[in-house]
C-alpha cells in the first residue's frame, strides 16, 4: 500500500548532491543534510528505509538496459572512429527504438557486484560485458548464490554462430562469448632476435630484456603464467620462472605500466602483450613496426575469450537477451573486432571483416587456454606459489 514518501532535498551547494535512487526496488528515500556547521555544511547523507513491497515500478523504464563493462570498451582504443560502446548503443537503439543502453564502468570491475551480492544489496546493473573464465571461478570462490543466471540459449537466434572452440566450460553456462584475443610476445627486432620458444627466453640474448606483468592482477600477466603452467606442467613451471628470474626478467604490474614504462622507453625489448599490437601503430602509409613485432613462442598463443552475462537480479532478462543476440550479428561482430581490436567470437562465415584487418592482427597456429574446470580450485594456489617464488 503506497504511503507518503517524504523527500527533503539537501541544501543547494556548489556541489552536485546525489539522490539515492534505486531502480529495482522502490524505497522510501530521504535525502537530508547531515550537520550544518562550517566544517560539514552540505555533506549530503542519505537515509533510506527498506519498504519491502515490490511492484511500485513508477520510475522504471521498460526499455533501459544497464550494461557494466571496462573502461576501454567505452572510451575506445583507436584514435579515430567510435568506441565499441558508442557503436553498439547507436546500432542497437536504432534496431529497437524503445530501448536505451546505459553504459557503466565500475572502477572495481566485477568485484563491485560480488560485494553487492555479498552484502545482499541490489546488484546495480543488468548485464556485464567483459568476463574472462577466471572471473567465473572468482565469483564462485566468493559467493554461494548465483551472480549471473544461465544463458537462455533458446531465446537466442545467433548463439549457434559462435566458434565451436570458444567455450568457457562453465558448468552453469552463464557466459556468452563476444570476442576473443591472443596473448603473445611483442619484441623489438632491432634489439633482439625473434624469441621462437619459451626456452629461448632463458638465453643470454634476452638477459635483462624481458618484461611481464603481475599475474596477481593483470590479465596478460595471469595468462602468461597459465601458459607456462600449460607448457611446463604444474610441477616444473616454478623452475622455469626461477630461470627467467636468473636471466633478469622484470615482473612489472599492469599492462599499462610495463608497456608505457620499460617497453616503450626502450629499457626492455620483449614484452608479454596482445597479438594485435601492430594495429595501434600501423597508422600512415609506411608505418615503422620495428618495435611491434609479434612472436608466438612454440607457435602458440594464449587465448582469452571475453564474454557477457546477465545478472540474476536483473528484471530485464528479455531485453538483455535481445542485446546479446544483437552483439552476435555479423555487423556487430565486425564492429567489435575492429573497434575493440580483438577477433570475432563467431565463425568466419558469420562476420564480414575486411581482409585488411588481418594485416596487422595475428593468430597463432595453436592456441592454449584454460577452462573453468581446469582453473577451479587451482588458480589461487598456482598464483600463490608463483608470487612466493618471485618475491622471496
Amino acid at each position, binding site marked *: 500500500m503506497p504511503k507518503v514518501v517524504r523527500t527533503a532535498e539537501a541544501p543547494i551547494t556548489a556541489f552536485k548532491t546525489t539522490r539515492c535512487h534505486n531502480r529495482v526496488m522502490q524505497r522510501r528515500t530521504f535525502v537530508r543534510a547531515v550537520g550544518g556547521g562550517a566544517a560539514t555544511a552540505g555533506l549530503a547523507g542519505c537515509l533510506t528505509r527498506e519498504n519491502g513491497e515490490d511492484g511500485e515500478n513508477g520510475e522504471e523504464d521498460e526499455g533501459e538496459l544497464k550494461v557494466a563493462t571496462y573502461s576501454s570498451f567505452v572510451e575506445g582504443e583507436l584514435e579515430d572512429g567510435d568506441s565499441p560502446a558508442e557503436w553498439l548503443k547507436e546500432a542497437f537503439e536504432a534496431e529497437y527504438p524503445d530501448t536505451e543502453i546505459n553504459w557503466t564502468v565500475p572502477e572495481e570491475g566485477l568485484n563491485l557486484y560480488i560485494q553487492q551480492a555479498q552484502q545482499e544489496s541490489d546488484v546495480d546493473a543488468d548485464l556485464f560485458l567483459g568476463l574472462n573464465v577466471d572471473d567465473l571461478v572468482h565469483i564462485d570462490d566468493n559467493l554461494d548464490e548465483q551472480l549471473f543466471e544461465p544463458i537462455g540459449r533458446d531465446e537466442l537466434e545467433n548463439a549457434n554462430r559462435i566458434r565451436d572452440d570458444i567455450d568457457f566450460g562453465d558448468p552453469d553456462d552463464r557466459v556468452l562469448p563476444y570476442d576473443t584475443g591472443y596473448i603473445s610476445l611483442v619484441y623489438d627486432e632491432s634489439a633482439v632476435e625473434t624469441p621462437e620458444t619459451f626456452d629461448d627466453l632463458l638465453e643470454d640474448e634476452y638477459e635483462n630484456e624481458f618484461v611481464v606483468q603481475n599475474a596477481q592482477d593483470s590479465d596478460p600477466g595471469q595468462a602468461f603464467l597459465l601458459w607456462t603452467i600449460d607448457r611446463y606442467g604444474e610441477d616444473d613451471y616454478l623452475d622455469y620462472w626461477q630461470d627467467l628470474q636468473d636471466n633478469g626478467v622484470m615482473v612489472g604490474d599492469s599492462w599499462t605500466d610495463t608497456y608505457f614504462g620499460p617497453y616503450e622507453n626502450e629499457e626492455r625489448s620483449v614484452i608479454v602483450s596482445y597479438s594485435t599490437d601492430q594495429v595501434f601503430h600501423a597508422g600512415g602509409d609506411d608505418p615503422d613496426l620495428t618495435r611491434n613485432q609479434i612472436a608466438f613462442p612454440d607457435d602458440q598463443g594464449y587465448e582469452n575469450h571475453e564474454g557477457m552475462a546477465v545478472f540474476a537480479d536483473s528484471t530485464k532478462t528479455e531485453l538483455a537477451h535481445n542485446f546479446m543476440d544483437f552483439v552476435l550479428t555479423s555487423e556487430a561482430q565486425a564492429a567489435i573486432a575492429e573497434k575493440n581490436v580483438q577477433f570475432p567470437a563467431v565463425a568466419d562465415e558469420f562476420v564480414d571483416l575486411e581482409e585488411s584487418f588481418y594485416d596487422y592482427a595475428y593468430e597463432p597456429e595453436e592456441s592454449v587456454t584454460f577452462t573453468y574446470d581446469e582453473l577451479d580450485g587451482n588458480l589461487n594456489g598456482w598464483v600463490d606459489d608463483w608470487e612466493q617464488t618471485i*618475491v622471496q
Partner: protein
Amino acid sequence: MAPSDEHDGARNRIAQRPVRRFLEDSTLADWIERHALTLTALLTAGVLAVMLYVPVGIVFSNAVFVDGVPTLRHFQEILADPFYFGSLASFFENPLAIGSHLSAIVGWIGAVSISLSLETPLPGLDVPFPWVSIRTPGVQGGLFGFTAYQAVLSTIASLALGLPAAYVLANYEFRGRQTIRSLTILPFVLPGIMVAVGFYAMFGQAGTLNSVLGTVGLGPYSFMQYSPLAIVIVAHAFYNAPLIARITVAAWESVDTRTVETARSLGANRRRAFLDVVVPQLLPAVFTGALLTFIFTFMTFPIVLALGGLELATVEVWIYDRMRRLDYAEAATLAILETILSLGLTYAYLRYESAQSGLSRAASPPGREKLFPDLRTALSPKRLAIVGYGVVALIVFVGPMASLVIGGITDSGGFTLRHYSFLLERQVDGADFQTQPYPAIRNSLLFGLGTLLIAVPMGVVVSVVTARAGRSGAIIDTLAMVPLAVSGVVFGIGLLQGLVFGLSLPFGWQFQVTGAVAIVVAHAVAAYPFVTRNVSPLLSNLDPAMVESARALGASRTRALLDIELPLIASGIVAGAAFAFAISIGEFSSTVILAGGSDTYTMPVALERYLGRRSGPAIAMGTILLAVTASSFVVIDRVGGRFEQ
C-alpha cells in the same frame, strides 16, 4: 614589514582587540565566538567518525571476527609466517622461548664480518670509493622487513634531497623563488603511472638524461637497471623530498631569529647560534617531514611495482592483492599491522613534539641573502654547492616531469599535437557517457577548493586542541592521524561497503553517503592531517605566555587564536592549504568509489580512463593535470602570502 614592527603589531593587537570586542559585544556572536573552537572540534570528530572510523572499522573487523566470534587467529598466522616476518616469525611463533632466541642472536652476531675495500659504485665512472662491506648471515626480513628497510632508505634519501631545498628557499633571494616555493609539492599530485612513465622517459636507455649526456659524448647508461631498488628510492624521494622541503621552509620562515641576535651578542659565533637557536626551532618540522615520508613509503604501492617490479613488493601490494581476491581477513590483518606500526611511530613523535615548548614570539625569519649578488660570491664554495644541488634537483624533480610533458607532444614520428587534438575532439564530439577533459578539470578544481575550505579549519582545530596537551593531546593527535596511517585500499573498500552500499541502522533504516559533497569530505579527511602536521610544529614553537596574556585581557580562546597565533603561523597554514589542495587533486580511489556510478570524475580519473593501448592521450591529460595544478598552487600561495608577513 621589519621583524620588530611585526612584533609590536602582534602586541598591539593583543592590547586593542579585547577593548573593541567589548564595545561591539552581541550575545549570539559572542556565544559563537566563545564556542567556535569546541563546535569545530565536535564537527571534526563527527566527520571523522562517519567518513573514517566507521568505514575503516568495518574492514578491520574482518581481521578479528570469524563468523561473529572474536579471534586472534589471523594475527597468529601472519606473525608466525616467515614470508611476512622473516626471522622474527619464529619469535612470534613462540615468544616465550627466550633462551633459544638469545642464543640465535649471539650466534648471528658471531657470524658478522666487516671488510674494507675499494669499489666503483657509480655506473660508468671509474672512480674508486672506499667501501665498507658488512657480511651478515642472512637476516630474513620478510615482507614487513623489506618494506620497512626500503622506507628507511627512502626517508634518508628524501631528507638528503629535501633539506637543501628548504635551506636555499628560506635563506636566499633569487628570481622565481616564490614560484618555486609554490611549485615544490607539484610531484605530489602525479598518479603513480605518470611518475613511472616520467622516470623511464627521463632515466631510461633512450631517455632525456642519456640524450643530454650523449651530446657531450657520455653514455648511454642503464640507470634503470643498475639497481631497481635505487630507482624506487629516488622515485620515493621525488614524491617526498618536496614534502620535507615545504614543511621545513614553512618552519624556517616562522623562526624567531631575534634570539639569534641575542645569542650572537652573548658571544656565540654564527655557527653556534644557528645550531643552538635556529636548528631547535626547525627540528619538529624536519622530524614531521621524515615521519610522514616513512609512513608514506612504508605504505607505498603502485610505484614500487611499476619501477622495481614484484621482487620489491611491499606489504601494501599484498593488501591490494588480497583485497582484489576479496580475502578480507588476510587483507585486513596485514592492514592493521601496517597501521599499528605507523601509528606507533606517530605517537612516539607526537610525544616529542608536544614536549616542545618554544619561546618564539613572532615570525622573524632570517633575512634572505641574494643568491648571486656578484661573480665573486657566485664562485664561492657555498654558492657552487648550491648550484650543484640545483643540478641534482633539476635532474630528479624537473627531469621526469619535463620528460612527461615532452612525451605528450611527441610520437614515433617526432613532434605532434594529435594527443591534444584527441582530447579536444573528445570534449567536442564525445558521447555523454564518455570521459571528457573539461568536466574533469572543473571537478578537480571545485573538489580541491572545497577540500581546502574544510580541511584547513579541521586541521587547525586538531592542532590547537592537541598542541601542548601532553599525553592526552598526543593520543588524540595520534588518532587524528589515522587517515595517514590507514592503507588506501582499506579506506576505499570501507567507503564502498560502509557508505556507498549503506549501513543498516535499527528499525530498518539505511544510511548511505555518496555524491560530490561526500567526495569533498572524504578528500578533506585525507587532507587535514597535512594541515595539522604543518601547523602543529609552529604552534608548539610559540611562546605560550602570549596567548595567556590575551586570555587574561579577556580575549576568548578563538579570538586569541585568530588574532595572535594564526598570524604568526600563517606560513604553516598556507603550506597546509597547498597540501590539502594537492591531496584532493591527486586523490583517486575515494573519488571513484563515492561517485557511486555518477560522472563526477576528476583529472586523475580521466587520465586513468584514457590509458588504453596508446599512452599519448593519458600523458597529454597528465600534462594538463600538471599545468592546472601548478597554476592553482601559485594562486594559493599568492593569496595565502597576503596573510603571511
